[in-house]
């Protein structure tokens, strides 16, 4: 069993290195030009956002609609850092750290009262908190209010790639740890979990804070990569966009979030020249997915090498 795990991990590592190498080659060969590079960065940031929300919604089963609130904290931490204190890549790193600390604190403040709520009530409460964070930033002096911040570019796609890798490893390993299994038990049946001696509120808070911190990383990277941040970019509709990515890919499936984030960004790029029908096609795609696959593209399943190996083995067995 141990060997299996090891092999699988090596395969994942291989996939990471391979995709990094392929992207590098494609970029240096000019096949991925500046346009696709921005698309690539959007995909990366969307993946981080989707997996961080997936941790809260998919793994722990808590319905949060305030995710953009944590993204904006990360974005402004990094933005203010770049603008007023340290520029360049060190500024981005400091901004990411500052964003994670602040959003962890805010998430804790939000989580302790609200995570005692369930379902719709929790959704509305988090939605409110997301807006509160945004309005606070809108009225602060250092954030330049409604005009937002105009920033130099400080984040390359390499940084985003490795951030995606790190965040994914954190989320996946959390999901498989004892804490993660406790979170899954909360998702499956809160009362049963409580009866088994799991402190449900504590695990809900843990997942919520971790998700918030990862979302703030995405926000910080966004600020460093996309020149302008304004409070009105992070309204609840941004939270809904993230939610759509999670539901589209499958709640609880990290690989599903990867696929959905990639597909949605690509769909958007492909449909660029048909601007008037773009949102209709996008909406239609969502309707079709929800009708035919109500649990999202992958449901709760993951695409894994162990699964792939099993399929291959089975196929081989059948052939013999």
């Amino acid at each position: 069993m141990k060997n299996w795990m090891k092999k699988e991990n090596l395969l994942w590592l291989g996939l990471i290195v391979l995709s990094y190498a392929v992207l590098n080659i494609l970029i240096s060969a000019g096949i991925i030009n500046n346009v696709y590079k921005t698309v690539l960065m959007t995909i990366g940031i969307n993946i981080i956002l989707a997996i961080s929300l997936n941790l809260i919604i998919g793994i722990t089963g808590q319905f949060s609609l305030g995710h953009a609130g944590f993204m904006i904290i990360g974005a402004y931490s990094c933005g203010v850092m770049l603008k007023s204190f340290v520029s360049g890549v060190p500024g981005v790193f400091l901004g990411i750290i500052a964003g994670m600390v602040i959003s962890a604190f805010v998430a804790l403040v939000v989580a302790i009262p609200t995570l005692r709520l369930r379902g719709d009530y929790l959704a509305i409460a988090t939605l409110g908190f997301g807006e509160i964070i945004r309005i606070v930033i809108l009225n602060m002096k250092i954030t330049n209010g409604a005009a937002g911040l105009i920033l130099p570019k400080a984040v390359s796609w390499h940084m985003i790639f490795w951030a995606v890798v790190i965040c994914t490893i954190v989320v996946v390993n959390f999901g498989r740890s004892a804490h993660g299994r406790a979170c899954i038990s909360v998702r499956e049946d809160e009362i049963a979990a409580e009866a088994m001696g799991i402190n449900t509120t504590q695990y809900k808070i843990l997942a919520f804070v971790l998700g918030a911190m990862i979302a703030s990383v995405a926000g910080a990277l966004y600020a460093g990569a996309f020149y302008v941040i304004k409070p009105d970019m992070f309204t609840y509709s941004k939270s809904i966009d993230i939610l759509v990515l999670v539901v589209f890919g499958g709640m609880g499936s990290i690989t599903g979030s990867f696929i959905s984030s990639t597909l949605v960004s690509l769909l958007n790029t492909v449909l660029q020249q048909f601007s008037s029908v773009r949102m209709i096609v996008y909406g239609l795609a969502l309707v079709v997915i929800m009708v035919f696959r109500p649990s999202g593209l992958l449901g709760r399943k993951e695409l894994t090498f162990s699964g792939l190996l099993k399929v291959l083995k089975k196929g081989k067995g059948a052939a013999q």
Partner: protein
Amino acid sequence: MKTMKKAFMSALAIMMAASLAACGDSSSDTPSGSDNSGSNTVKIGLHFELTGEVADYGNAELKGAKLAIKQANEAGGNYEEVIYDNKSDTTEAVTLAAQLANDGVAGVVGPATSGSSAATYQIKNDAKVTVISPSATQIGVTLDPSGNVYNYVFRICFEDSYQGAAMAQYAVDTLAKGKVIIYADNSSDYAKGLTEAFTEQFKKLGGTIVATDYYSKGDTDFNSVLTKFKDMDYDVLYIPGYYNEAGLIIKQAREMGIDCEIIGSDGFDSESLIDLAGASNLNKVYYTTAYTTVGASDALQAFIDAYKAEYNEEPSMFSALAYDSTNLLIQAIEKAGSTDSDAVRSAVENIEFDGVTGSFSFDETHTPIKSVLVVTLVDGVQGDAVAVSPDVD
């Protein structure tokens, strides 16, 4: 296991479909690209908010810009428009800026809003693509994060602050007022910029700010604040903001018996203002704008006629600004005699442009030096327009 396999297959199928579509997209791009490099067509990028929140502005500007290109082609030019829609989304605007730089356009007009414009400037400046912004009015938007002007970025509208200062000048000089109450929208940078500039200029000219109060976008009931104002000692009310709220404020103020002069900004410039405030309440109301059809010059009249003939509707300030931006770019390209980015850029920088929104040249921040128009409303209709140039340092 079976469902897992099915899921994997369907995901794979979708990915393949998407990549096929992407291939189809790029292959259809290539032939048109090679066609253009063969002939001498000059490509002009039009990058606007055609869908999403501020689609009104974007579409109005697109119409103005397309009209300018059409007229230039009729006059013997060979211009082709490359149109992109950024969905009123700054992330999308960044991608499109890279796309336009790739497309090899001679220059770009747009986007309409300051936020989206600011998101594109760095990329276009790095790629040496000249940008003319029709309506990016935010303070300092043509400067990069370290405060230097972007070499390739120009705008043809005045800054928010300039408009605020012009209104202060007009209030003191022409209306002879000295005591103002400011009632501003606190949710837009536009209104904040106006408030600051107005306050500064008004104080400089010896006026007193009696009170400054704020409302938020979407508010509909202003009675409590207006009641508070009513008992104060003031002679003019300044409302920097958009027509949605300003219309209701004017209506409620007039109904309450506040009959002093009300002054505002180009956010008032909409047909909806009459619907919201009621025509009879719109007397002694003045606002600053870059564009009015009152006392139109011959050039402006010709533009209005051409626009009506083309689209069967009245042009707005945004269409006029985009029309001017596009014409300015075309003139610069013709003057430069080539589409070489540096030649076009320096032609734009040194231009003396005579357009439908006024004559102007660029200052060192690539912002035009032109006067602001103050429009007087009589029963909701534009009665008179005066040009004002504030004495700002």
